[in-house]
């Protein structure tokens, strides 16, 4: 077995991302790791229920030996065994994000040439995590272009606090990741203002879309309203989608109690406007997600608006597992060039 890797859980933005990336890459490389000071600077430090679910999911996939996998634990040792492709089902409590659990096992799926089917129960449209439509519209197409045979399917929407959503991820056999360079947006193909209401009035969605189209002075755009009846609890969000030749940008506004539809719409407008004033093809949330698959592909590059602290921390952890060099370079025109080079 290869040497134990020590990881400082409080580094960078010091959240669950360090843990999830480490879990994913430990499964890929077979390298055991010990993480200490997990979420040390958070108000409730240590492993919370959603992290524990991710740890156990990765443990199950990789037949791993776990030490310290307990609620509130600040240290965890993860020693993976044999990773087995196949069908898995995981359930996350407190309506936690299904996608965050997926992050822990997706890297193992991406490097495998076998077929996988993973179904996760929990939240599918969570604040502070990539939503299911973001995955299907922005992230999965990138994986597709890199040669991965992966698809993500929203079986049932789940919102905070009720949960009850289902996200599934399928990987067909074969396929190999290849480097990808995305330096330009290309032509704007389609623009969309959308909103979703679950067990709430359709008028909320209409108001949100009206604000978005008015603020962006859009005319010939697509509008879409999704009404969901079968969810466990209520939910509302709106989004702005801009599909370009080489990438798609997606911005989400989350509805919550006591927040007007207009304010919900405005919460995603600022980011969208900043993106429109720019020419980089990859917005910052997609940048967060792209680093890991590109590292697994052995290289790649893209231009982005601005790397988040998440991205920087993620790059640190990736470089400690994989022989890859990740560089963030500021360009004269406010964009950043991110380059991944195999060592």
């Amino acid at each position: 077995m290869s040497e134990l890797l020590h990881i400082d859980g409080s580094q960078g933005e010091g959240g669950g991302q360090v843990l999830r990336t480490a879990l994913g890459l430990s499964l890929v490389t077979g390298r055991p790791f010990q993480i200490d000071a997990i979420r040390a600077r958070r108000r409730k430090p240590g492993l919370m229920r959603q992290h524990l679910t991710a740890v156990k999911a990765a443990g199950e996939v990789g037949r791993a030996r776990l030490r310290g996998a307990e609620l509130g634990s600040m240290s965890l040792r993860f020693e993976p065994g044999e990773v087995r492709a196949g069908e898995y089902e995981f359930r996350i409590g407190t309506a936690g994000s299904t996608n965050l659990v997926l992050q822990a096992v997706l890297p193992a799926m991406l490097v495998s040439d076998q077929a996988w089917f993973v179904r996760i129960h929990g939240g599918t449209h969570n604040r502070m995590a990539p939503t299911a439509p973001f995955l299907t519209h922005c992230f999965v197409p990138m994986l597709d272009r890199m040669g991965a045979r992966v698809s993500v399917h929203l079986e049932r929407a789940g919102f905070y606090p009720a949960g009850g959503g289902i996200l599934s991820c399928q990987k067909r056999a074969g396929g190999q990741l290849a480097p990808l360079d995305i330096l330009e947006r290309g032509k704007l193909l389609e623009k969309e203002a959308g909103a979703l209401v679950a067990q709430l009035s359709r008028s909320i969605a209409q108001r949100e879309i009206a604000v978005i189209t008015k603020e962006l002075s859009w005319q010939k755009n697509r509008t879409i309203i999704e009404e969901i009846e079968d969810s466990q609890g209520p939910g509302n969000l709106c989004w702005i989608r801009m599909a370009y030749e080489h990438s798609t940008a997606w911005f989400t506004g989350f509805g919550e109690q006591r927040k007007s539809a207009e304010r919900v719409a405005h919460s995603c407008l600022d980011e969208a406007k900043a993106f429109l004033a720019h020419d980089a093809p990859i917005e910052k949330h997609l940048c967060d997600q792209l680093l890991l698959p590109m590292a697994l592909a052995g290289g790649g590059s893209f231009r982005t608006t601005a790397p988040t602290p998440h991205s920087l921390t993620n790059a640190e952890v990736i470089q400690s597992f994989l022989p890859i060099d990740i560089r963030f370079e500021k360009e004269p025109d406010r964009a950043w060039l991110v380059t991944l080079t195999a060592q």
Partner: protein
Amino acid sequence: MKPLVVLGFLGTQIDATDPARRWDRWRPTVSLFQHEDFLVDRLELFRERKDETLTRMVLEDIASISPETELRDHTLEFKDPWDFEQVFAALHDFAGSYDFKPEEEDYLVHITTGSHVAQICLFLLTESRHFPASLIQSAPPIQRSHYEARYQIIDLDLSRYDRMAARFKLEQAQGVDYLKSGIPTRNPAFNQQIELIEKVALASTAPVLLMGPTGAGKSSLAGRIYELRRQRLGMEGPFVEVNCATLRGDSAMSTLFGHRKGAFTGASSDRGGLLREAHGGLLFLDEIGELGPDEQAMLLRAVEARRFLPLGSDQETESDFQLIAGTNRDLRQRVREGQFREDLLARIDLWTFELPGLKDRLEDLPPNLDYELQQFTARSGQRVRFNKEAREHYLSFARSPEALWAGNFRDLGGSVTRMATLAPAGRIRVDEVRDEITRLRRAWQSHDESSHRLETLLGRDYRERFDDFDLFQLEGVLKVCASSASLSAAGRRLFAISRARKSSSNDADRLRKYLARFNLDFAELQQEPLPG
């Protein structure tokens, strides 16, 4: 970590709400499963048969947000959820039939839901350990816009009520009041005395001598002076207390001043001794009049020079301690008899306070009675009160000349403890008082008979001259002497064991010397035969 099990009622009102709005509302049972940092492994939900629909909705919602949790529901049958007896019986039956495994699982009883009757029953059954659990109380979010509700876990083990206990302490921690244990005493002489003691305790570190009969509270007062100095003057060392009457022979020196390894047979390692232990703190030497001459000499050196010589050592040890001495004897009399060093007495009686016995402070009986009841509550966790009539009856006996209060406040404490222990449902009734008065009379009467004998033999002031410790022993010895024909015969009976072991040969001489310490001789005892 042991698996965590929550037991609680379905809240037929509070867990129920308009289904369409239910995720906007605080539902106590559901909220327990929404915490990121709190994971319940199993829920045992109590509900009535009629609440089938609500139960299904609540359990389905919990399953959605807490897939980690195993869910079980139990139908409890009672016709009226507000009938105490029915609810108690149903829960009591459940507790009896449920397979609690406190070694393997932790249990929490949720007391936010259910009728008030149900909550009270759960509390009682948890307190009585029928449910080997702690309590959990859930509360709505502070702001309604926040989803996260709150919870608090309450362990009924009284020793863990730290903050509550701290409050009681705080009430008492005020100077004079503190020295009086917070008892609002009325006796003017005593109150003045205590005020003076507070001043001295805080202004001087010189030795203090506390005089007074047994049970007058010397030891408790010394402890409180220590606490006061610790809190106000930042004294850092410990409170070390020893009754000198219990120190005898070789071990007395060693106990007080320590010894070096090999100083005597059995000294297998170094020992620091109590004076050393009291370094930086306070040493309370009760019954200081009982110290032997060697110990007195060494103590004098230790008090004057802060140094002394441990047994078998050629190097002096230092100890910076403060001294409080206690005695129930007239030390001046002991000096005149050549039993106590005059220079030591001069050193320790700079501040001498005489604590009066209970008989001299009868007006302080009621507040001390209340105090003893509080003490009982603090010890047992059980609140006990007097019925009005019972209290009057007790006080009137306690004030009467018939009540000797030979052991002073110690007797009062014992008396209250007995009544409180026997009181049904926390009420001391006239019945308990009557029985207690009988017990006190009997105790004081036997005390009286034997004290009559001792008074005849030892003189009127014998109580001031000897410890109870010695007197109890003497009483037994005198009985044997009275029923023995000769000094030798009595000696054989009294020293039978050491004689059998051949560790002592001259029993008669040993007995003669023992009696001589009390200025008694065998012939005198024969002339004055003791009955019994």
